[in-house]
């Protein structure tokens, strides 16, 4: 089997916050035109890896390569026109409207004398249409529901017009319907030809939407590949420390993780709570 081509790769990556090392000597490649999803338990380094791939975190050692060049040597604005990142910690300025926020995604395409071209206006409108927020264009972002707000942020990242899109936990804090809505949107963006990389918490959602799954634990990549190969009962036990069964998702046929029922202690062992 030959490895698929990868525009975005990392090798020998050691990542740390101050002196706390998160991952050591990590190699990873994002297959082109894949919907890659990174999963793993809390604090396994998956968001950290994503931040390094987007160059917002500088590696202690190792390199990230994009289109055959070290990502650190890319000019900032050129990089922002090629690779988009939706971080977890975005703040909507007080009172900003949806269209204004989406328009800020045009920053890397603008200059002091080219602040608002017809192209800017067209792309912003198109990004809002693609994410279904055009009706909300003149609403304040702080009036929106969590799901709407997340779609607005994705619209902003789309307005960057990048062929690679990195999303850090785009479904966190959303209810189940909005999670699916956002993931459907990501899947559509992927189907349109973008390479999408997302960090997700929910293993079943990851298995359903990903074309390429990366499972991490303690800063290491434990397994990667198509979800059907990666998600097995043994793997889930190894990565998450969870006893489970893996069955076929009745809707999509992708792996579905069903946690094992807890072994109920004998009645005599239970401490009575009155």
């Amino acid at each position, binding site marked *: 089997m030959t490895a698929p081509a990868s525009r975005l790769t990392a090798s020998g990556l050691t990542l740390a916050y101050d002196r706390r090392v998160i991952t050591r000597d990590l190699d990873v490649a994002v297959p082109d035109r894949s919907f890659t999803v990174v999963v793993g338990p809390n604090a396994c380094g998956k968001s950290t890896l994503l931040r390094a791939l987007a160059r917002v975190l500088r590696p202690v050692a190792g390199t990230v390569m994009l289109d055959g060049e070290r990502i650190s040597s890319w000019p900032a604005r050129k990089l922002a026109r090629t690779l988009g*990142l939706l971080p977890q910690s975005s703040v909507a300025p007080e*009172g900003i409207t949806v269209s204004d926020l989406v328009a800020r995604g045009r*920053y890397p395409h603008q200059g002091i004398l080219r*602040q*608002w071209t017809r192209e800017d206006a067209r792309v912003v409108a198109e990004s809002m249409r693609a994410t279904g927020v055009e009706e909300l264009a003149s609403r304040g972002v702080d009036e929106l529901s969590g799901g709407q707000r997340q779609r607005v942020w994705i619209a902003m990242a789309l307005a960057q017009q990048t062929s690679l899109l990195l999303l850090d936990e785009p479904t966190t804090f959303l209810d189940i319907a909005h999670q699916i809505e956002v993931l459907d949107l990501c899947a559509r963006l992927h189907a349109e030809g973008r390479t999408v990389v997302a960090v997700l918490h929910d293993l079943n959602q990851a298995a359903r939407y990903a074309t390429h799954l990366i499972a991490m634990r303690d800063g290491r990549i434990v397994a990667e590949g198509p979800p059907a190969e990666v998600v097995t009962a043994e793997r889930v036990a190894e990565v998450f420390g969870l006893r489970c069964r893996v069955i076929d998702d009745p809707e999509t046929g992708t792996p579905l993780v069903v946690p094992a029922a807890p072994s109920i202690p004998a009645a005599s062992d239970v401490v009575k709570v009155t």
Partner: protein
Amino acid sequence: MNPIRTRADSPWGRGVGLRVGGLSWRVSPRALVVAVVFAVVAVVVSVVSIGGGDYPMSFGEVVRALAGRGDASTDFIVNQLRLPRAVTALAVGAALGLAGALFQSLSRNPLGSPDLLGFTQGSATGVLVATVLAGGSGLGLAVGAVTGGVLTGVLIVLLVGRNGAHGQRLVLVGVGVAAILTGVNGYLLTKAQITDAARAVLWLTGSLDGRDWKQATPVLVMLAIAVAVTASCGRALRTIELGDEGARALGVPVDRVRGALLAVAVLLASLAAAAAGPVSFVALTAPQLARRLTRSSGPNALPAACLGAALLAAADLAGQRLVPGHQLPVGVVTGLLGGGYLIWLLTTERKAGRL
């Protein structure tokens, strides 16, 4: 179902594309109107202010003299005696308004102003040191104010650290530094000669009495530089408001932009303090009023500067006229007005659940 109409539905609030050939800008008509209206208010108030005093003049007489067509005596009184003070008021007000807008945007905190972040206290420390050590000539006070403000800025940036120059930490460190410097200032006052202490206290109140071009010029020069830097970094600053990571992902050199704008804001606040003393609350209020009037997010730098100039000119006029036969230093007036505004702001923000 009716779609909910919000304030931004009117074309006023929205940015309007302005295109000439291959060039294009985005302008918010509302922000522009706010800026122009308050620039005009500031100038009118200044003219009224110039017309008052021991030798009252009509609005028309002042305007004629300013245009260089008054008689010899009004020309002397207007252009030599009263204009420098009025220009100092406008320049200091605009500098404080702009500095406040930058600080509030950089700290992502509506209370992030030089008064609360410790820069004003730093300038005061500089002035007190200059007074106690050097006897405090006019120039000494100005140098002390600038040095104190700039050193405080350096200290705060060092304490905040490179990786943590984001909002919350800047405010917390600033408040801490402000508290320490207030203590230091109290100690310095007790150590000063009584006459020096009196002069220092007068400066600490914030006053425009007897200001001439020597005080106005440095502020005006710095304002010109600041407007240029703000204009070139404005879009980047608006992007930084989305969070450091978001801004970096959009290709903004976050550290460089923040460093440059922080330096500009500190210099503006210190030079304003050197010219007129630590006039309180203008830097806090002007950007917030600007934001409420323009109804747009972002630093609102230009409207804030114009509002600052109008506020300070108006406060100075009020200080001269409010109590007949008795002049109040401008700092007293802004303190009274600004304190009231702050209380109002805190209560309304609290009711709205934003604080």
